[in-house]
């Protein structure tokens, strides 16, 4: 296609540079028509060859946006995904789609005084959310920070110790902050990612076109792109799956932490929280005045990362 474009542009009369060609209306139209023709031919060729196993089915290709799907349509889609997973891995999975709970807005808090950087949360998250080891995708990065400093340029997520915590270090796990003003959502050209009423920012992997604008827009580097088809051993697949969270992803789509919405919307605590050996992680409903998360926000000196960007994260840090 790139070669076609160059040929088309080069063929313009007097067209020494692309800029000059654009100024020539007639030339531009001709170039456009040539490009359009080539694109149509390429599409027809791809359709004819079938383009391998990752090509969408007709039903998938013609489906509506998630928000416009009826309950029946959703059930059909979930059943198809379950069948595909069964055929590919031999594992029987169950895909649910729990809706946001009325009156609930989630928030997370992390006590940096007690986090010991053991990365138990990272691995628990990987198992819960069906994250591949090769290529390695992890939603949580734990930074080893210099004591008394919040300077990320002096911090590293690449540490390994026998005895944690290391002297004069503290540890700061960073994951999706589920911003109330999420720049990633604004960046998406096809509305494949959006903020739910309970504050969780979700991605419909079937709608994502893989442009990665959201990955660049996120100031916390919380989104991950599947450069290749993720491969998870069948015995490590979590069969309890959510359509908008840990269902199978595929090459060319973006994914991220969803506060384990397939668990949390059913009332459970997130997997990373339960795996934390030090109890540094706290989660709950911001709208409940008696919740632990509200007490933390009201009584501790909480802070958010990159507050100056006005992303309004739902992920708070504190020392206590």
């Amino acid at each position: 296609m790139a070669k076609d474009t160059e040929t088309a542009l080069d063929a313009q009369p007097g067209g020494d540079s692309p800029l000059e060609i654009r100024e020539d209306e007639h030339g531009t139209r001709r170039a456009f028509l040539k490009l359009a023709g080539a694109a149509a031919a390429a599409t027809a060729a791809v359709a004819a060859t079938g383009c391998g196993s990752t090509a969408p089915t007709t039903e998938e290709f013609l489906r509506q946006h998630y928000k416009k799907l009826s309950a029946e349509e959703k059930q059909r889609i979930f059943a198809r995904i379950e069948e595909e997973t069964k055929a590919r891995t031999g594992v029987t999975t169950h895909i649910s789609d729990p809706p946001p709970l009325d009156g609930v807005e989630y928030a997370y808090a992390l006590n940096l005084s007690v986090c010991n950087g053991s990365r138990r949360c990272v691995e628990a998250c990987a198992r819960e959310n069906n994250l591949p080891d090769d290529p390695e995708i992890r939603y949580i990065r734990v930074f080893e920070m210099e004591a008394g400093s919040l300077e990320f340029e002096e911090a590293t997520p690449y540490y390994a110790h026998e005895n944690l915590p290391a002297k004069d270090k503290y540890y700061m796990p960073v994951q999706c902050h589920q911003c109330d003003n999420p720049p990633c959502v604004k960046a998406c050209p096809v509305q494949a990612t959006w903020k739910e009423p309970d504050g969780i920012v979700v991605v419909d992997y079937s709608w994502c076109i893989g442009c990665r604008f959201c990955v660049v827009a996120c100031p916390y580097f919380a989104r991950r792109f599947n450069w290749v088809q993720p491969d998870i051993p069948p015995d490590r697949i979590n069969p309890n799956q959510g359509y908008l969270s840990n269902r199978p992803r595929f090459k060319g789509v973006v994914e991220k932490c969803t506060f384990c919405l397939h668990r949390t919307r059913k009332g459970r605590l997130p997997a990373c929280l339960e795996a934390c050996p030090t109890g540094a992680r706290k989660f709950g409903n911001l709208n409940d005045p008696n919740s632990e998360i509200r007490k933390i926000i009201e009584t501790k000196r909480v802070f958010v990362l990159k507050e100056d960007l006005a992303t309004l994260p739902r992920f708070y840090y504190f020392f206590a």
Partner: protein
Amino acid sequence: MLTRKLLRVGLLMALTLFGCSPGEEPQRLHTDHPPPVPSGSVAVMARIPLLPTYPCSRCHEDRTPDPRERQLTEFHTQKILHHGVLGGWCYRCHTKDNIDRLHLQDGTLVTFDQAYELCGSCHGDKLRDWKAGMHGLTTGYWLGDRQRRSCPFCHDPHNPHFPAMQSEREPSLPRTVSTTEARAPHEESNGEGH
């Protein structure tokens, strides 16, 4: 005159139309709450079933309490007492006359399941945070029943510093970053920044 009137009317209309327009609502957190959803109940996990030698009276019944500080050679030899400046040896916290109970400084007896009250008699700030759910590990349901571990689940009362742990495996490095560079990002190499 007419022009001036028209200008005034125009200005008023402009103010009415645009001046008071709310425009785009500023992003605000947590406004317009529906009624709060209660977050369920908390149960403190029982400690006694996990104590292999409980009840203590099974052995201590026919022994005379010895409050002297000494090296234990017969039983409890693995216990290392490394917990602040303690006087009174075992019987600072365990009860001479009722060995199956602990006691607070005012003499109130508490069970091993209520050990947090004893811890809290010195570490009041931590007890306050723990009771509010801000300290310690809680698992289960944020919307429903959840279980909270009391202090001895994480802190050995005789040696309460949280034990050192080994880190889970290191994240794999991006192809463009060397191990040295990744582990010491503040030390510049080849004169290049990071």
